[in-house]
């Protein structure tokens, strides 16, 4: 199957890195005049030389986002259905050798979580699981999806990579989006952090977005775990990935996520530090590169920082999240995938958003009447 893997193999990380780090101020200025769809411009905007241009980047990015999305910010909530996992990933609390209590929600427990989420007002949910093919695989997802879809207008999943035909089956049941993060686009680094389980297969994961698109799923979410490797380079690779997907699967919508490595149960420290200015640079660079990509911000950043980031290019956010199965009914920290940083309730976040001049949206109106 033709996929991004073919394109990826033509890219030279060494050449890209060299060019990125020799970007000049002039290159950045030129990039700012012609950023859209231009990978050379993206490279310049991700480079250290662009740090001096953060304010003009932010101004342009904010204006572009306003033009495309208005003041709308979409709200969604993650619903962890299982923390069973057959992979060993040293940055994650669910890693298979971590001694945490393992849980997969049964139908009743799922219903209870859903009831609480609905009570809070959400209409868009992201079902999350670890990666356990045999115990929490396509059959499990197929069994829960119809009920979840009957309760939420928009349903996304973030689970192990599946086969095209699995995604097709889920699409028929109303699945709207799939998030699959490559974590890092550097194979050597990838191998260091993924030491057991199917997730070790870099290329299989890399081709997943292609399989999702071929299955006709409406939206695909990409992401890197910033800090595993050089975040500037990983972001640039993600830009290549995004552009390839948009060109090849033009009917599909795309979203990106920019999670920074955080302490977790069993934790590791970032290889390359990504400070707040760097995060600002990432958001703005991607918005300038792609005016229509959705940019999602999770609760893994401090409340005060999040409030400063909304305007820069964010389109979707979560609030009051729990990252453990059954965590809405019974909040506790032991089962957490990552420590959360924005502890505000959704009501607090919504009120703050309105104060800042935004329009928090519960429902994505486009999908509301396309019920499969």
């Amino acid at each position, binding site marked *: 199957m033709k996929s991004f893997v073919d394109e990826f193999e033509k890219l030279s990380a060494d050449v890209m890195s060299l060019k990125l780090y020799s970007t000049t101020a002039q290159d950045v200025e*030129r990039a700012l*005049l*012609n950023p859209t*769809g231009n990978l050379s411009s993206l490279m310049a905007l991700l480079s250290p030389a662009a*740090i001096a241009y*953060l*304010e*003009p980047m*932010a*101004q*342009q990015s*904010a*204006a572009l986002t306003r033009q495309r999305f208005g003041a709308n910010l979409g709200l969604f909530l993650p619903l962890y259905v299982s923390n069973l996992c057959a992979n060993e990933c040293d940055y994650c609390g669910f890693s298979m050798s971590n001694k945490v209590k393992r849980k997969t929600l049964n139908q009743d427990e799922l219903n209870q979580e859903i009831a609480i989420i609905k009570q809070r007002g959400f209409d868009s949910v992201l079902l999350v699981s670890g990666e356990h093919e045999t115990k929490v695989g396509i059959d499990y997802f197929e069994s829960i999806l119809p009920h979840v879809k009957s309760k939420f207008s928009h349903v996304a999943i973030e689970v192990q990579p599946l086969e095209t035909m699995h995604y097709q089956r889920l699409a028929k049941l109303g699945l709207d989006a799939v998030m699959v993060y490559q974590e890092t686009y550097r194979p050597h680094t990838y191998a260091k952090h993924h030491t057991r389980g199917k997730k070790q297969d870099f290329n299989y994961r890399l081709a997943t977005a292609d399989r999702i698109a071929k299955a006709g799923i409406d939206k695909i979410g990409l992401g890197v775990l910033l800090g595993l490797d050089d975040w500037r380079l990983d972001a640039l690779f993600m830009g290549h990935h995004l552009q390839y997907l948009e*060109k090849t699967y*033009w009917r599909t919508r795309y979203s990106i996520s920019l999670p920074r490595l955080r302490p977790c149960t069993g934790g590791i420290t970032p290889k390359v530090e990504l*400070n*707040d*200015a760097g995060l*600002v640079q990432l958001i703005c660079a991607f918005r300038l590169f792609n005016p229509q990509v959705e940019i999602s911000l999770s609760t893994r950043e401090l409340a005060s920082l999040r409030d*400063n980031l909304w*305007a*820069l290019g964010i389109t979707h956010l979560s609030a009051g999240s729990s990252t453990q199965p059954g965590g809405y009914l019974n909040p506790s920290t032991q089962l957490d995938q990552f420590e959360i940083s924005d502890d505000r309730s959704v009501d607090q976040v919504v009120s703050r958003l309105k104060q800042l001049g935004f329009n928090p949206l519960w429902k994505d109106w486009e999908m509301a009447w396309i019920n499969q």
Partner: protein
Amino acid sequence: MLTISDHQFTSRLFTGTGKFSDQDMMLAAIKQSQSQLVTLAMKRIDLHTNHDNLLAPLQSLGVKLLPNTAGARNAKEAIFAAHLAYEMLGTKWIKLEIHPDHKYLMPDPIETLLAAKQLCDEGFVVMPYVHADPVLCRRLEDVGCAAVMPLGSPIGSNQGLATETFLKIIIEQAQVPVIIDAGIGSPSQACHAMEMGADAVLVNTAIASSAQPEKMAQCFAQAVITGRQAYEAGLGPVNRQALATSPLTGFLGQSV
């Protein structure tokens, strides 16, 4: 070098054979244009007149012949015309042209897509002439067309690139060559089309109806070369003034 299907072209100016005052003038103009691809129509032979041998002189110029389906009013007739062309000329290259609208000669998008799909499935190298509709061009690409030919303005109108905004979108999104066809009225317009990133342009009326077609053909040839070279050299960015509002990154403080 422009590659369409399995053929390579060094010239990005394609020409038509219509509207010239006579055949000699047509051949002379095509020669001056350095065009390597020339479109022709098909008609039932008129038994009462001498049959000008059109093809032999064209072939001696070394050009590739691209028959078109002009006259077809729907997909069925266009497909029929394509089969005719194959028998006649032995080529599977076909320019799909379906315009039931006699006044403005606007191409029918639905019939064109239908015909394109069937002809592509039959192994034809299909080059569809359509309005500058980005989604339509994607759909044509999806069914296997070897190129897309969006119009600049109505055939013969010499109005230039009235569809410029949409041509740019098509050029940005296309994975097959984009040949801007119809309405290009002057060498500067052809140059502009190439500067925008078009892979080629097709010019007929502007050359044929000029007072000096040979000279005009020469000008078009130069314009297309210049436009393409400028595009490849990388045109300077157009300055866009941004309206500054209150600072957005002040919160980062000295840590920047």
